[in-house]
């Protein structure tokens, strides 16, 4: 059996859970596993209904006062009990920030292997392997789990398409699972999530975006990119290191910790294409990458690429655009 752990916040299902379900269905097919179960922890009656309606497998609801606000200690304690009760062969989740926060502790407590950030399933039926990026996406690794079961796998967001879910013939049953949690064993006391400030720019609405990365070298060079943005009628955006350095405000950051965008045109200037950036922009319709490193992972998602010095190419593009 494959157990998928769904994710919710404030009762709302994280959309990445649907991708994890698709990954789990493909893993089931590859590994010859016939049944799937979905567990959801916390105050999540509506999310459980939504999951059950998809009919992909029995939905286990794990409710307890200690699980109302997410804390890693509470999730580890509760889900360890669910897993011991269910004895799945695989435990599958989306590789979200929340999964990164508790799954390594959960797997360690159960003395089970954990493979994170998987993008594909390979290997034989009796010994599936998983593809995952290494070295900032410069290499792909095929890895195999070692040691006792169950095997935990988190799948990269965007690696599987939610619309490929094979829905069941009818709704699945919902079964509450009782867990015992010693409230004093939950050491983290979380406060309410908040957003830093209302966003001044909503990059998700921009038709065109010019994004800069480390290759821009200094804050003083930003006008080079801004001139191209002006010529294209584009918004300016950046990868994380640029916003970390304070060269552009955080609200212009694209990627897993910033905004997710899918404009008509995305021009990446001097962006190497770490996965944290790619997940925020790879849905763009046309992607242009300009980078001096021909092996930069950004070229894997680009439709058009120029390998070269952006400080020569970008002004030439501006000149060309202004000719028309």
């Amino acid at each position: 059996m494959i157990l998928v752990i769904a994710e919710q916040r404030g009762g709302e299902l994280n959309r990445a859970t649907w991708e994890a379900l698709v990954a789990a269905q493909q893993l089931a097919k590859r590994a010859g596993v016939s049944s799937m179960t979905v567990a959801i922890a916390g105050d999540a009656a509506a999310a459980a209904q939504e999951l059950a309606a998809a009919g992909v497998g029995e939905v286990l609801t794990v409710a307890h006062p200690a699980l109302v606000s997410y804390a890693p200690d509470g999730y580890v304690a509760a889900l360890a009990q669910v897993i011991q009760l269910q004895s799945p062969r695989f435990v599958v989740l989306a590789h979200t920030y929340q999964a990164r926060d508790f799954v390594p502790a959960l797997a360690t407590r159960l003395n089970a292997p954990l493979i994170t950030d998987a993008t594909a399933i390979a290997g034989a039926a009796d010994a599936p392997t998983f593809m995952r990026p290494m070295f900032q996406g410069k290499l792909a690794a095929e890895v195999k789990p070692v040691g006792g079961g169950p095997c935990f796998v988190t799948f990269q967001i965007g690696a599987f398409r939610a619309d490929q879910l094979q829905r069941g013939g009818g709704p699945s049953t919902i079964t509450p699972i009782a867990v015992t949690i010693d409230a004093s064993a939950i050491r983290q006391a979380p406060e309410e999530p908040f957003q830093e400030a209302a966003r001044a720019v909503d990059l998700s609405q921009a038709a065109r975006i010019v994004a800069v990365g480390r290759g821009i070298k200094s804050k003083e060079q930003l006008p080079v990119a801004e001139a191209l943005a002006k010529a294209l009628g584009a918004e300016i955006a950046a990868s994380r290191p640029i916003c970390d350095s304070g060269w552009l405000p955080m609200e212009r950051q694209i990627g897993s910790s910033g905004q997710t965008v899918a404009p008509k045109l995305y021009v990446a200037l001097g962006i190497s294409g770490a996965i944290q950036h790619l997940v925020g922009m790879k849905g763009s319709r046309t992607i242009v990458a300009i980078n001096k490193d021909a092996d930069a992972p950004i070229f894997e998602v680009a439709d058009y690429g120029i390998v070269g010095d952006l400080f020569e190419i970008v002004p030439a593009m501006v000149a060309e655009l202004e000719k028309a």
Partner: protein
Amino acid sequence: MKIAVCIKQVPAREWQPRLRDDKAWIREQDVSYEMNEPDAYALEESLRLREKHGGEVVVCSAGPTRVQQVLREALARGADRALHVEDESLSSADASVTAAAMAAAMADEKFDLVLTGLQSDDQGHGQTGVVLAERLGIPHSTIIMEVQIEGGALRVKRELEGGWFQWIAMPLPALLTIQSGINQLRYATLKGIMAAKKKEIRKVALPAGLQAGQQIVALSLPSRAKQTQIIGGSAAEAAKELVRRLREEARAL
């Protein structure tokens, strides 16, 4: 405050990957190494906490002999002393082995706070910190953007996805994985570099029998998701051709 910072030595950013003949690991003889960037932010945060609260910063790394370079660098930036779990096999160890090795080295030290970067720029499992907390039996929180300590209690700002944050309180001792960009990094001064030469790097043997959670079958260059059209020529020619294709083919302008 007795603070441990875990750092890893990883291939430098401009490294071009080359594989060993068996494809199960990289050709290490070609690699120039540097401090894992998220760990540099964890180190900086520990130095700032020591400046505010006093105490000691101990930098820890599990790796082959070569990792002494990043330990020295951390000492030059201001760490007080270092722990080095030294074994050649650790260069390609997974998070389970690395965390277990660190846990064994740290067991007697009784640190108040352990900081790590949120993930490494080499294998990138994003697990070592959380597994280490579990092994040490201390609470943890991840992807931290601010650390407050008052009267023996910890309050941290955790980054959630999509621009959301959350404050979390927890008792000490605790482990935090630090997000890049939490602070502005300092660099070593000449005085720091000189002082680092006299600081202690204590070597610790790798405990026997640590079990890996996974094994690399093979490494490869990633397959391209798209057929990228690479446009060549001089800068002016390439720019002109790109603008033409964006107008006529992609109709993106």
